[in-house]
């Protein structure tokens, strides 16, 4: 590499391997990773949980030592000169590294002291950071009392008290509302522009990856691809389509399309289905419809997610026609015939509020969910989604309002209602040191199952969720995607009519997410009602209807297409779900300011 080019590379990893040993288990975080981050660029490290993003970040700042390979930051070897590297980079760890019992100003002062910022230059830098992050009005507030988005910005400000040459941000946007997310991106680009900073940030959101100058796709400790987003999308050009079939349920349509031989990937996108064609098979687009009557198809621009999914599928063995028929969650059980869909709402929420002291976690929420519907609650952390869920499961009484689940009032018949619902919590709530089979046995016995019936259900779960191969493995050793499968199987052991899924897909890779949604869709077709919370905007598109929540309030209810249509404006003639969400939050803020 020429000296000139070398000066352009701020961070370089050469053939880096990192393993963690915990007892008898060895976990490989990074296999053999080489990458370079160029000066003045925003490089995104993209991958699901467990891909090795955090390990890579920690290696780059000298918090971990590589087992093999070399890491150079600003021309210095990190292993030998960790202290010098740390003095010239800024790093924001996943939970922002804030002292929650210190005020905004005290946190900033602490980091200014630690970074050795001379007192003379503090006031101007401080003012600049407060202005940039919009925190100027909150300097006296304890960091623990800030909203998620404000914490994220304070964390960022703390790493910027001394302008670093290289800024590393580890998942800065997890669980943060879309408005704050957009603001963070604006700040990042301002830093690059005005202070010539180089930024490496990791994220699990593929839509964010599109905003980076360069991206590195990381999967199970290996790099799948790196380059500019357009370069990575390029091979997909001519292979991405959007199909619609008016009058057919989009779930049935998606299922039919997924079975067409030339189709590599088919996902629901509001009232249409997005298709990625297999490589090599230069088919006429109409062939991809597999002769489905009345369906139309049009070419669309490829997205990064298409590229990522194509890489993963092709890596897993393309052309095998691995597309399984979606599982039938009724299985061999007596309910196989399926319940007759009930008329009217299965879940009724009427003017429900929940207070904790003076704080309203949920305020005056009203919505209905019909039988067999997939209903989404979309919102950032702290929007009141989990509180709403806990009230619906009878785990938390409402402060005011009426909640009815399966026609039972939760105030009087919480236990009876609970027997008819399945619940999968955010962290999966599995017993880590029990095996897959033991977890299934425990959860089925918790619902009063025993003997032959229990054995039957366990066999059903093993078969439907393809867990038989790992039946005797401790559940803590499973991959995130398999844990998610097991958790869902546990929630379905007693064949509930209603299934509650709290952030079921956070952190899992796009493949596991697709598989998960195909199971949800199959369940919904059998008449099971599904309530799901998510903060993935694109997942909201898979729902029949959804409610958008922020700060405890329901801002909008409707089908994804309706919600997006409702927020059309001159600036956004065809808004994405995120655009719609941001417009809703801004409208509300304007409404509040007007009154």
């Amino acid at each position, binding site marked *: 590499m020429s000296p000139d080019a070398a000066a352009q590379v701020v961070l370089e990893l050469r053939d880096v391997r990192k393993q963690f040993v915990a007892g008898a288990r060895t976990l490989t975080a990074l296999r053999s990773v080489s990458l370079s981050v160029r000066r003045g660029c925003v490089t995104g490290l993209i991958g699901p949980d467990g891909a090795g993003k955090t390990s890579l970040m920690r290696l780059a700042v*000298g918090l971990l030592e590589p087992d093999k390979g070399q890491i150079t930051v600003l021309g210095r070897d990190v292993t030998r000169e960790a202290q010098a590297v740390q003095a010239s980079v800024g790093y924001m760890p996943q939970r922002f*590294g804030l002292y929650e019992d210190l005020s905004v100003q005290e946190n900033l002062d602490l980091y200014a002291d630690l970074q050795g910022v001379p007192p003379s230059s503090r006031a101007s830098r401080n003012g600049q950071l407060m202005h940039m992050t919009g925190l100027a009005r909150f300097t006296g507030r304890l960091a623990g009392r800030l909203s998620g988005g404000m914490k994220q910005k304070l964390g960022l400000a703390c790493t910027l008290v001394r302008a670093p040459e290289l800024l590393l941000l580890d998942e800065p946007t997890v669980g943060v509302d879309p408005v704050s997310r957009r603001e963070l991106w604006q700040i990042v680009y301002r830093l690059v522009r005005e202070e010539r900073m180089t930024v490496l940030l990791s994220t699990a959101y593929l839509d964010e990856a599109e905003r980076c100058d360069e991206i590195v796709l990381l999967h199970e400790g290996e790099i799948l691809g790196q380059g500019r987003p357009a370069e990575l999308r390029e091979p997909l050009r001519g292979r991405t389509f959007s199909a619609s079939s008016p009058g057919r349920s989009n779930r049935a349509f998606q299922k039919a399309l997924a079975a067409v031989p030339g189709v590599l990937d088919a996902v629901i996108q509001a009232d249409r289905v997005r298709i990625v064609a297999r490589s090599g098979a230069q088919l006429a687009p109409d062939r991809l419809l597999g002769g489905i009557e009345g369906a139309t198809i049009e070419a669309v621009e490829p997205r990064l997610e298409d590229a990522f999914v194509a890489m993963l599928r092709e890596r897993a063995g393309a052309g095998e026609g691995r597309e399984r028929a979606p599982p039938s969650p009724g299985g061999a059980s007596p309910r196989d015939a399926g319940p007759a869909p009930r008329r009217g709402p299965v879940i009724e929420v009427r003017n429900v509020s929940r207070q904790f002291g003076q704080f309203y976690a949920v305020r005056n929420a009203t919505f209905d969910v019909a039988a067999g519907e997939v209903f989404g609650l979309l919102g950032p952390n702290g929007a009141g989604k989990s509180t709403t869920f806990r009230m619906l499961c009878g785990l938390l009484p409402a402060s005011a309002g009426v909640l009815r689940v399966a026609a039972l009032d939760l105030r009087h018949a919480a236990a009876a209602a609970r027997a008819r619902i399945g619940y999968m919590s955010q962290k999966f709530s599995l017993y880590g040191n029990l095996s897959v089979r033991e977890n299934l046995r425990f959860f089925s016995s918790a619902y009063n199952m025993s003997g032959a019936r229990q054995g039957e259900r366990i066999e059903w779960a093993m078969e439907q969720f393809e867990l038989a191969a790992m039946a005797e493995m401790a559940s803590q050793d499973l991959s995130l995607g398999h844990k998610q499968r097991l958790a869902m199987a546990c929630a379905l052991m007693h064949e509930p009519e209603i299934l509650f899924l709290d952030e079921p897909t956070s952190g899992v890779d796009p493949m596991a997410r697709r598989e998960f949604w195909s199971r949800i869709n199959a369940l919904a077709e059998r008449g099971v009602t599904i309530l799901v919370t998510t903060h993935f905007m694109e997942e909201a598109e898979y729902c029949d209807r959804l409610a958008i929540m922020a700060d405890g309030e329901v801002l909008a209810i409707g089908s994804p297409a309706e919600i997006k249509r409702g927020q059309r404006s001159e600036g956004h003639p065809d808004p994405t779900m995120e655009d719609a969400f941001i417009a809703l939050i801004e409208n509300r803020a304007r409404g509040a300011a007007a009154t």
Partner: protein
Amino acid sequence: MSALSRMRLRGLVRKEFYQILRDPSSIAIAFLLPVFLLLIFGYGISLDAEHVPVAVVVEQPDVETASLAARFSGSSYFAPVFLSDLGEAENALRERRVNAIVHLQQDFSRRLRRTDGAPIQLIVNGTDANTARLVIGYVQGAWQTWLEQRAAESGVTPGTPLRIDQRVWFNSELRSRNYLVPGLIAIIMTLIGALLTALVMAREWERGTMEALMVTPVTMGEVLLGKLVPYFLLGLGSMALSVAMGLWLFKVPLLGSPWLLFGVSALYLLAALGMGLLISTVAKNQFVAGMVAIITTFLPAFLLSGFIFDIGSMPTVVQVITRFLPARYFVASLQTLFLAGNVWSVILPNIAALTVFALLFLGTSRCLMHKRLE
């Protein structure tokens, strides 16, 4: 590069003080807990026996037995119940209404006049060996003085030729409070030095702030000092409070030098802080750190330091174990300083031992703390 930066250290210390002031649990451990422990041990627990319920069984009352019985009624050590039947008294003992039976048999007065002396039978509930021993001592004392007094009145020399002249040194009032309160200071300093420090370090790991600290130019020495200084001062404050309560509320004498007391306490505090920091290099969540700190520092300081139980009467193996406990050397110094004064032959070896522990623990934690997450 690795030189100590005053700015960074000041930032860390200030941060720690804000956290202490805003966290009710550290204030509780540093100031409420000492008050609570001192009140319990000062008022609630006394290893002295006072108003011991005793059944005095007099089978044949006469002048002599009435005079002896009056000894028991007049003493603050006893709360006597007078009975005429031994069977009844034995029931009372069994039901724990009395701790001992003093049995004066039918022929008590007749045998008293004979030179071989009149026996009194003493039956003691030995469940609590400590109290039992005390009761035996008290009853013997009462019996002895009664005999002497009777002899003086009648001019007859008592049958016992030997007279025991007792004198108690170093705690002349024989108040257990006087040695419990100094020992408590050791317990309190262990709590602040080891438990609180291990907890706050673990909290930094748990909340991810340690990771953010490590990526600043701060050195691990500064992180360590940033924890040491505030909790050292907090510990001294708490010690001052305990000593003040001991002196003025419980009237414990302080015969030695207050400066020496301060110096020895500071030294022990360093050792305790060293233990806390050492624990936190291994235990990185608050629950584990708390359990390890309680099992390895607090409980041994409570049970094996000589604070309540005399080390000399422990089995040899346990005695050997106590040699590895810094608290043992501190408790010994404290009890000496309070009750016997500046006895250098005792204090100096203890100071030496405490210095070794402080250096060992602080040095080891410094060596084990890396700016690495593994």
